[in-house]
């Protein structure tokens, strides 16, 4: 592996981490689309900054672009507050307008500016190692590595300092306000970090991948955990994994690095969406099936408990009586038998002691709806997990 390859992967990984952190909070605040808006509408900020500084990596340019990002958020909120249009419409109005101003500005000055729309949309990570930061004659590494590294350090610092404030204001704005943690300040703080990160990552990976790196890792980890800290850590891991594996996929296919990373993010999400242990599609289908069987089992047990007469408890009679198909009756019968809830005597079914107990407890629960009574049953049965 050459040092340029290593540098590209390092930049991609740092960008992924820097994006995953604000991205997690954007996803939880249901503001995923605002990152899309910011990533596009900072274009005029970048162009104006470039006119002034003539340097794509100047801190002033990053600052100007971030300010454009904040202006986007303010405009969206202002339009939304009039009550005439909804938030998604407001976003759809604001960012294309700002983005197109940027496009026109580039087109008007295309002759003497090394900036084009393709590079802005898709970025070009492959060229990142060529733009070096030279300090008093010494080459200290690619400029974009320093830029995103600095942004990442600031982001991590802010995250550690304000984790509790971010959490409470994301979960419960009203409580945060009453406790004196200004939700407005935290909101704009998060928007500023998102804007700065977007600008910093923009040059390396482009506007579209920035959005993918903010939203996809967070959305993926949301399916896997019930704890905010873990969600952040998983999101970071997914981001870095996609960055590195995406780089090698691009290397192997000789294709765009940004495109490959985004594709990896998509595959990762799809895999988790299908196979996540609790929230995944397959797990949910399995759970529903299981619940259906258990409801059937309970219905069956209740029927046995309610009827003492033998003809109501004959195996063949049960088929037609409870109105199930043969296969289903057999599944339920087997399940009850396996759990020692019933005994069979010449095709007459009756409840065992365990079956009696279980059924009474279940009835108790259904009538009183008291969770404490069935805590110990929950491990065995999906039905009561709610």
């Amino acid at each position: 592996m050459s040092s340029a390859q290593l540098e590209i992967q390092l930049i991609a990984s740092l960008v992924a981490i820097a994006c995953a952190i604000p991205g997690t909070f954007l996803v939880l605040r249901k503001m995923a689309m605002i990152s899309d808006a910011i990533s596009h509408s900072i274009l005029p900020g970048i162009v104006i900054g470039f006119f002034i500084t003539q340097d794509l990596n100047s801190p002033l340019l990053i600052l100007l672009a971030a300010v454009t990002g904040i202006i986007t958020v303010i405009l969206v909120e202002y339009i939304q507050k009039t009550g005439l249009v909804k938030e998604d419409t407001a976003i759809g109005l604001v960012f294309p307008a700002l983005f197109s101003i940027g496009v026109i500005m580039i087109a008007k000055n295309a002759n003497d500016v090394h900036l084009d729309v393709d590079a802005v949309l898709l970025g070009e990570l492959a060229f990142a190692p060529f733009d070096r930061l030279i300090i008093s004659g010494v080459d200290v590494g690619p400029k974009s590595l320093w830029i995103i590294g600095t942004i990442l350090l600031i982001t991590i610092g802010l995250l550690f300092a304000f984790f509790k404030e971010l959490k409470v204001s994301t979960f419960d704005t009203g409580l945060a306000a009453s406790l004196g943690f200004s939700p407005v300040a935290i909101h704009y703080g998060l928007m500023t970090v998102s804007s700065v990160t977007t600008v910093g990552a923009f040059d390396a990976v482009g506007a579209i991948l920035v959005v993918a790196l903010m939203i996809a890792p967070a959305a993926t980890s949301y399916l896997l955990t019930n704890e905010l800290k873990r969600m952040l850590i998983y999101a970071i891991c997914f981001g870095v994994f996609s960055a590195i594996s995406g780089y090698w996929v691009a290397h192997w296919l000789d294709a765009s690095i940004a495109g490959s990373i985004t594709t990896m993010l998509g595959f990762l999400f799809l895999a988790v969406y299908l196979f996540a242990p609790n929230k995944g599609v397959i797990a949910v289908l399995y759970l529903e099936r299981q619940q259906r069987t258990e409801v059937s089992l309970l219905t069956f047990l209740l029927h046995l408990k309610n009827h003492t007469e033998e003809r109501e408890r004959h195996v063949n009679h049960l088929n037609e009586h409870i109105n199930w198909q043969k296969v289903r009756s057999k599944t339920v019968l087997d399940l009850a038998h396996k759990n020692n809830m019933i005994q069979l005597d010449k095709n007459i079914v009756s409840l065992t002691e365990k079956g009696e107990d279980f059924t009474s407890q279940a009835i108790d629960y259904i009538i009183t709806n008291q969770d404490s009574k069935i805590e110990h049953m929950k491990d065995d049965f999906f039905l009561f997990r709610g």
Partner: protein
Amino acid sequence: MENKIAVKVDDLTVAYNYKPVLWDIDLEIPEGVLMAIVGPNGAGKSTLIKSILGILKPIAGSVSIYDEPYEKQRQLVAYVPQKGSVDWDFPTTALDVVMMGTYGSLGWIKRPGQKEKKEALEALEKVGMLPFKNRQISQLSGGQQQRIFLARALVQNASIYFMDEPFQGVDASTEIAIINILKALRKAGKTVIVVHHDLQTVPEYFDWVTFLNVKKIATGPVKDIFNDDNLTKTYGINYKVSIQE
């Protein structure tokens, strides 16, 4: 009753988009009462609480908590928002939500530690939710979620509690558990202010009541002012509620 005034509201007017939701409210809530705020939908009950707590900005008027502005008295006040105002799919546990009640006394940046955790566990115990401390909040029933919110307010160890419809969507046993805790708070000398919907239970649960419908209709002891006259003025139709003596 010659008590200190816990909450004082002066000429409070709040508007959404130029339409007044609360109009020139004057209100004095004495220390140590368990007070219901009642009124029809859209009467501004939640708005009143949110304005007192500085969550909404009034266009006129002022609020004081023990003669000082709210900003100086945050530590004395606990707030239970409406259950529906938060996203219960948020990735967090019951214990963690209760811990949020300690954030106010910690202030900015400082993190909760063992002491805060111990307080949160005690509060969970008080509302009977200790066995559920590590449960993800979306896995809790509506009543359990409300108890978690109550525990979070208890952990704030405040003097004044504001609660926005704590009985909404809870089962009967939770309702009894909650009202018993509220009565215990009053016994301990705390002031409890509750937005309440069920008029039938007002005389049984509360000793003080405020009738609200954009304007304040009446405020005072339940036994003196909870009558058909005030109910009719507030709800606009002829109300008949029998008061158990």
